[in-house]
């Protein structure tokens, strides 16, 4: 069948480059023009399958991070841990897995811990990102950074520390549907973990049965000599858990809470699949809610998504440590969430302060090797429309609104056009104006209001 016939039958009508871009921004860190073309041809199901499980794909070829001519040293150099993760986001062949690692980092927000421990936790989150949630939960519970952060390690059986028990229920599994008493009893059951600081600075978490309160406990109206594994099991099997966790996943990708039927459908799917994340995420990515209003994107790009996406779309690797400062200024430093509740997402990212920093991010981007406009590099005499097209190609063909397109064309027209010069005014020569026009077009394409949403 010819391509025209396929379109008439409507089979590919609901899937084009705009859909791919939307999906890739939500499920990852944007799509390059080549990726957009490739996955538009392959269709929705194949695209989602690739995002979920990986495989052969035309991912951008971007060089590994090098700062000051050297590879990164995440453990010792300040900011290099952030750059290390940013580098993964930019170059990963599994963008959805990387995006979910970010989700889990926010979900199990751990902060103020030594870098080697945070990097280990990051690996744990990545390994479990698309797997069975109970396994991820178990691994996070035993993770040293978490065990130290929420005082799970060395919680005294005589006076158990409630921090982990509280956040386990309030933030990690349930949201509501538990009492203060459940927390206290769970804290008892969670005793037994101890920490051991080693000579090389590492911390080991181990379980010491002598340190565990083995008495009878009552949690969620169940009774028994519960230990930490029982507590996790009880939380996951609590009726509030499936809707809580699937609702949170939905909101992360779609940007607004799920409707009642959607909520019920996802919770049921999650339970039936054995508490697996992959089928739930697959259902969310296939949902029509994700593709609403392709010409008016409804979610704000979080700072790391904005930056990693811009670098990825331009094919630019990491070659400066400014990104660590700039992420800080935009309000999102990976490995340092503001509290156990993670970051505040959505329009909270956009204050005039953070917009000013996003402008500076663009300043830095246009200074990178891929986007730099060398003096005399721009063809003189390009009409405004061609100048804009050239700039758009360089920055990865981002979506822009009609209004932005008109405004940028007017700007190019003003800068490139000849005009009468009043007495005493001097204007740079045509070549220089062409170069500067190209620079500002790239700048505005990267930091204008349209570039902040996806």
């Amino acid at each position: 069948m010819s391509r025209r016939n396929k379109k008439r039958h409507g089979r590919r009508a609901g899937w084009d480059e705009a859909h791919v871009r939307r999906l890739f921004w939500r499920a990852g860190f944007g799509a390059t023009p080549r990726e957009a073309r490739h996955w538009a041809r392959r269709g929705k199901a194949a695209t989602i399958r690739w995002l979920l499980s990986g495989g052969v794909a035309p991912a951008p070829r971007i060089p590994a991070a090098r700062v000051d001519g050297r590879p990164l040293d995440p453990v010792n150099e300040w900011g290099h841990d952030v750059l290390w993760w940013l580098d993964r986001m930019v170059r990963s062949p599994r963008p959805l897995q990387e995006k979910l690692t970010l989700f889990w980092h926010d979900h199990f927000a751990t902060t103020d811990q030594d870098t080697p421990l945070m990097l280990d936790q990051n690996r744990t989150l990545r390994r479990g990102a698309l797997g069975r949630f109970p396994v991820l939960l178990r691994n996070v519970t035993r993770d040293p950074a978490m065990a130290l952060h929420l005082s799970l390690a060395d919680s005294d059986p005589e006076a158990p520390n409630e921090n982990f028990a509280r956040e386990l229920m309030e933030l990690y599994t349930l949201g509501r549907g538990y009492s203060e008493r459940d927390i206290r009893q769970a804290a008892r059951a969670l005793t037994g973990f101890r920490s051991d600081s080693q000579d090389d600075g590492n911390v080991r978490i181990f379980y010491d049965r002598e340190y565990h309160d083995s008495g009878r406990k009552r949690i969620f109206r169940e009774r028994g000599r519960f230990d930490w594994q029982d507590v996790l099991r009880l939380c996951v099997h609590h009726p509030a858990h499936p809707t809580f966790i699937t609702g949170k996943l939905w909101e992360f990708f779609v940007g607004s809470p799920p409707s009642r039927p959607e909520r019920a459908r996802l919770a049921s799917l999650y339970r039936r699949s054995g508490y697996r994340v992959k089928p739930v995420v697959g259902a969310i990515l296939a949902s029509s809610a994700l593709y609403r209003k392709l010409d008016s994107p409804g979610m704000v790009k979080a700072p790391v998504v904005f930056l990693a996406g811009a670098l990825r779309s331009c094919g630019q690797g990491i070659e400066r440590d400014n990104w660590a400062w700039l992420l800080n200024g935009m309000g999102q430093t990976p490995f340092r969430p503001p509290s156990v509740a993670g970051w505040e997402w959505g329009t909270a990212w956009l204050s005039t302060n953070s917009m000013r920093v996003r402008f500076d991010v663009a300043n830095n981007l246009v200074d990178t090797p891929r986007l730099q406009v060398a003096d005399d590099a721009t063809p003189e005499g390009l009409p405004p429309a061609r100048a804009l097209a050239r700039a758009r190609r360089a920055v990865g063909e981002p979506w822009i609104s009609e209004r932005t397109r008109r405004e940028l064309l007017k700007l190019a027209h003003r800068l490139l056009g000849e005009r009468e010069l009043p007495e005493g005014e001097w204007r740079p020569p045509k070549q220089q104006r062409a170069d500067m026009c190209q620079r500002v077009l790239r700048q505005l394409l990267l930091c204008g209001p349209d570039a902040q949403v996806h």
Partner: protein
Amino acid sequence: MRRDYLGGPAVTRRQVLGAGLGAGLALYTTRAMPLTRVFEAAAAEAAAAPDAPVLVSVFLPGGVDLLDTLVPLHDYGRYADLHPKLRVQGIALPGTPFGLHPSLTRGAGGGIKGLYERGKIGFLPGIDYANPDLSHFHSRHFWETGLITDREAPGWLGRVLDRSGGADNPLQGVTMGYGLSPVMRSAGAPVAAVASPGDAEFWIRDVWGEAEAEAIAAYGRLGHGKGGSRALQASRTAAHLAKQVADRLEPYAEKDGVDPLASSIAYPAESEFGTRLRYLAR
């Protein structure tokens, strides 16, 4: 005052400037304002009441034991029973049944106690709510909003502004920091956050003169336009206001080594808190 978005090692103003970060003034408004008259309105209000007092609210989130801070000397026996290991010998506060924790009597001029004796400070003991919720977030939320609720709500200072503040002056309530303090989150009244005035100016690398000016003006214009999703509208508003802020703060920018905001009083130099208070004083 929240340090939420800072993270990392403490960042001094010099480092921020050195890293070329934009900061300046963040405006939070929930509706369209006569944006071009924003700072005129603030100046007008200040001019109309030049001696109007400025309320500085310092919110110190974290645990403090009320009974150890204001020791109930009139009921010391019961206090001692409740705090067998941690009890403190309160230093009597004249004219009240309370005693102050000894560390609050130290410092210049007799510390907090000295300020009280000179009539500069007052205490409101015993503000709390029944059935304490031990969730850190719930509890803090109650203190920030003055309401017992787990829903989103404006902060108590925000509600003060909604009720008695103006509609056009975002400088009527200012958070010193990178994000808006939830205490000041308002339903409608515009408020602002200041990190470091003078850092807001826009500039573009390798571009100058007419090209730079036109480009920055175009950036401001991209902030116009109606319609689109809430996210897009918020993005446009932020861009437009950022440009406005830069324009208005331009006179306060440190230029050629001269800092127009330099103060005559020495504030603790390397302290973030001290720096914020210094800017606030201006």
